[in-house]
Structure formats: C-alpha cells, structure tokens
C-alpha cells in the first residue's frame, strides 16, 4: 500500500501531518469530532454532516469495511475524514469494499495517523474550528491563507444543498430495521426533508406509515394536500436561523396535524414557536450522550449530531415545555407543546449509529396520530 503525505491545518495554526487515504485533493470545512466507536459509514452518509470535516475519537477505523446497506442517504456528505489509525484490510462478512476505496469513489479526502486525542482536546477547549485537509498543497502558509478566507458555519444555509427538488414516496421496505418496531396501524405521513437519514424513514415504514417526502421549500398547503395524519420534520445540516424559508410553513401547520421533529426539525420548530437558537461551543456529535427525560426522570443514552441548540430562556413557557435535557452541558434536547400534539427532540432516536433507548418516541408519534 502506497500512502501519500497529507496535511491538516486548523484555524488556530495547528498543523498535523499524516497519511492520505481516500480521495486526493483539498477540502475546507468546520472540524467536528464524533465519539461513536463504530458506525463510520452511517456518519459519512448522514446529511447533517454536510460541509463538515469529521474526526473519529475512536482510534481504529476501517476494520469492517463498507457495505451497500448501512447507508443513511444516497451519497456521503462529509467533506473530509480524520482518523487515528486507518485499516485497509477488512474483516467482516458484510464488507464489500474498503473504506479507503469508498472515500476515493465519493471524492472524500481522508487523513490518518493523526493524534485525534490532541485534536479533540483542542476542539473541546477552543470550540469548533475551521480546518483544511490537503494532499496537493503541502505548504502550510498557503493553506493558512485559504482558511482565513473561509466563512464560519454560523449563518450558513446548507439545507438547500441536501433537500430534494420534488416530493417523492419512500418505497424501501426490504431492509430489516429492528424487531421492536411493529406496525401500529396505517398512517399517511408527510416528511419534510431537510436532509433526512434513511433509518428514520425505515422505522416509520416499519411502524405502518406511508411516507411522502417533501422538499424544505414546500408550503403548508402543499403538505396538507396529501391529507397527512402527521407531519415529520427531519434532521439536517447547518445553522437553523439561516433556513428562514422553512419557518412559515411550520407556523401554518401548528394545530392542524400532529408534528414530530428531530434535530434541525426540532430547532426549526423552536424558531417557529418564537424561541431562538445559538451555536454551541463544540457540538454534540456521537452515540453516547446522556439525556434526561424530565417527565419520568429516566436517562437515555442517545445518538446526537448538532452544533446548534435552542436557548431555554427564549422558549414561550406558557405554551411550550422542555421535556429533555442533555446531562453533559444541560442544554435543551426536547420540547413539547402543552396543548397541541406537537413535540420534538434534538437528538437522534433512530440511532444509526447508536443506542436504541429512544425508540419510544416514534411510537409516541403514532399514538398521537391515532387520536
């Protein structure tokens, strides 16, 4: 195996020299860390990571290869991938190709042999930083010039890059989800796709929902035209405050149907309810975030992927209540309307990758639709 030299330079002038694996080239983006031990294929294909460079805190990556079933979208959205120790030899019966060849095919620049602990500590103390990975330009000075010109994630609308152009129906029924999700009835559900992960669609289908997927630009009338039993707001990338066009349709939908939002859907719902969002110092990315469900006091271990959060001070307390909080930094992880059948969570109950503690939320959505 011949490895080429690659460089990673951060906004604060931290330089890492490692080996290139995956595609060759140069990428700029916000560097975030993910604390999942496995599930790199789901992470790569998660549209919420659009425009970001992801580093895995778990050191051994690539050892189970890549297959065609573990994808969360039609293509990977991560721009660059940083790992400690990349393994080019796979050892898994499901593996169809190596991670390196998958990254090359999809034009994602990978860099390994990086001290990811040092990098993660840096991101934790300094907050999110922009970075550049390059295999072509190995001059730190010129790389630094490029970073200086790159915009921050704040105020960046990335939904427009991942949302579908037209509405479509979800038909993928073959993939096995989890035996815990059995049909709860027959529902007609409208999904607003800000960058939806396929496992959400798989779980909703397993629960008996017929899914029509709408673009983020759809108006409330378009969505109501299919007479849905419920509306689902998906996850997605970027700053929620920049997705202004998606707010009005949500306001119009309040009170008409049960609504369930996840991740960006949750943040947009918050904005539609009058709350504000802010950028976290370093985002929550990983599959081991403890969340407290205030209603019962139970703690769930959840999969999360967000760089922004709803400001608890700005929530309209007369109509909305906070239902979940993150136990690491006490940020808001779930809200619910006090009278209307509307609720949302910041984290990912569909896991992929991650624990299945929060699967009950999908059943709760079905219960609301039955009424």
């Amino acid at each position, binding site marked *: 195996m011949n490895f080429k030299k690659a460089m990673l330079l951060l906004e*604060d002038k*931290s*330089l*890492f020299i*490692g*080996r290139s694996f995956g595609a060759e080239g140069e990428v700029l983006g916000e560097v975030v860390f993910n604390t999942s031990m496995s599930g790199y294929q789901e992470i790569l294909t998660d549209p919420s990571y659009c425009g970001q460079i992801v580093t895995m805190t778990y050191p051994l990556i690539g050892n189970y290869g890549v297959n065609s079933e573990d994808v969360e979208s039609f293509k990977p959205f991560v721009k660059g991938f940083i790992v400690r120790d990349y393994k080019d030899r796979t050892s898994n019966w499901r593996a169809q190709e190596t991670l390196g060849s998958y990254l090359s095919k999809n034009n994602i620049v990978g860099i390994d*042999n*990086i001290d990811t602990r040092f990098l993660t500590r840096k991101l934790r103390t300094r907050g999110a930083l922009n970075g550049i990975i390059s295999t072509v330009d190995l001059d*730190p000075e010129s*790389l630094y010039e490029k970073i200086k010109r790159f915009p921050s994630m704040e105020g960046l609308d990335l939904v427009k890059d991942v949302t579908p152009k037209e509405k479509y129906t979800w038909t993928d029924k073959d993939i096995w989800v989890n035996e815990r999700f059995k049909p709860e009835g027959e529902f007609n559900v409208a999904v607003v796709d800000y960058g939806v992960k396929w496992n959400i669609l798989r779980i909703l289908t397993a629960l008996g929902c017929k899914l029509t997927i709408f673009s983020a630009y759809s108006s409330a009338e378009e969505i109501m035209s299919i007479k849905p039993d419920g509306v689902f707001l998906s996850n997605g990338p970027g700053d929620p405050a920049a997705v202004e066009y998606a707010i009005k349709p949500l306001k119009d939908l309040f009170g008409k149907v049960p609504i369930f939002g996840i991740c960006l859907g949750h943040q947009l719902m918050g904005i539609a309810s009058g709350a504000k969002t802010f950028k976290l110092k370093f985002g929550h990315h990983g599959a081991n975030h403890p969340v407290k469900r205030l209603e019962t006091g139970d703690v769930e271990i959840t999969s999360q992927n967000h760089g922004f959060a709803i400001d608890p001070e700005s929530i309209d307390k007369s109509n909305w209540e906070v239902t979940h909080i993150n136990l690491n930094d006490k940020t808001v992880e779930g809200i619910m309307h006090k009278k209307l059948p509307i609720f949302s969570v910041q984290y990912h109950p569909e896991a992929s990758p991650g624990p299945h503690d929060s699967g009950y939320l999908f059943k709760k959505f079905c219960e609301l639709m039955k009424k």
Partner: protein
Amino acid sequence: MLKAKILNEQEINKILHRLMYEIYENHKDFDKLLLVGLWTRGVFLSRRIAEIFLNEKGIRLDTSELDVTPYRDDLYTKEKIALKTTNLISTRERSIIIVDDVLFTGRTIRGAIEAIFDFGRPKKIELLILIDRGHRELPINANYLGRFVPTSSKEDVNVRLKEIDNVDEVIILE
C-alpha cells in the same frame, strides 16, 4: 524512589525570570523571535516565559508547540509519519528558541532542529533548557540554561509543572 528535590516553585520561577532577561539581552528584533516549546513540558515553559516577557517588558512573543515524535531517530517504522504543531507554519527568516525541560542525550533537540528546518530556513536556532543533566551523545548545548545537575545514568530527572502535574518542582528519582 525519590532521591532529591532540586528545585521548588520559587526557584523555578526565579530561573525563568533570569532566562527571560538573558533572552532580552541577546535579542533585538522581538517580532522575529519565536519560542518553540517541545511537547509536553517545554510547551508550558515556553508559555510561562512569554508571559513573563509580557509582564516585565510589555512585549508579546510568538509561541508555538511542536511534537517531535516523528523525528525521533529510534523509530522502528518510518512509514508512520505524523506530526503535530501549533503556530509554526513558517520558520523562514525567524530567530527560533527551542524550549524544553530536560537536556539529556541531545537527540530530541536534534529531531526538533530537523523538524524546524522542514518549515523553512530559520535565521538562527537557539536552545533554552531548564535542567541539563549531562550524558550528551550529540554536539548540542543550551544557550540559555536553568541549572546544570550532574547525574548518574541510572537516575531519572523529573520536571513537574502545575499545568499538568499540579505542582511545580524538579526531582531526581533513582
């Protein structure tokens, strides 16, 4: 086993002040000066010296961090190239002071010099060391020396700093 405690907090602080004045005496163009702290404790020493410089003279020095592991001469595999540094993206035409805690064989410093040359041709490289314990295997010497401590090769010199060890002291272990 602890054999002796060589320096305590005040003594370390006093030495760093003296070293700072030596640097101040020897240099004129402080914009060109760059302190390169070697991981791990050299980084904290270089930050302290920069802080003393700022407090005493009101001059802000550039500091950077360098991990010389990939430049060691005793690595089994050369394929594992991995380097991390902060604020060292160009050393061209700069006066560089390498900062480290203990000077022993001199091999770490040789690696650091090699690494610095990979970032451009510096005007000058100097060396600042807190403890020189002898037993050099290379023709390397400190320009700014905290203290010379004769040791036997069986002994270990440990520099402990508040930033990571919660205490400021230098001890000899046997």
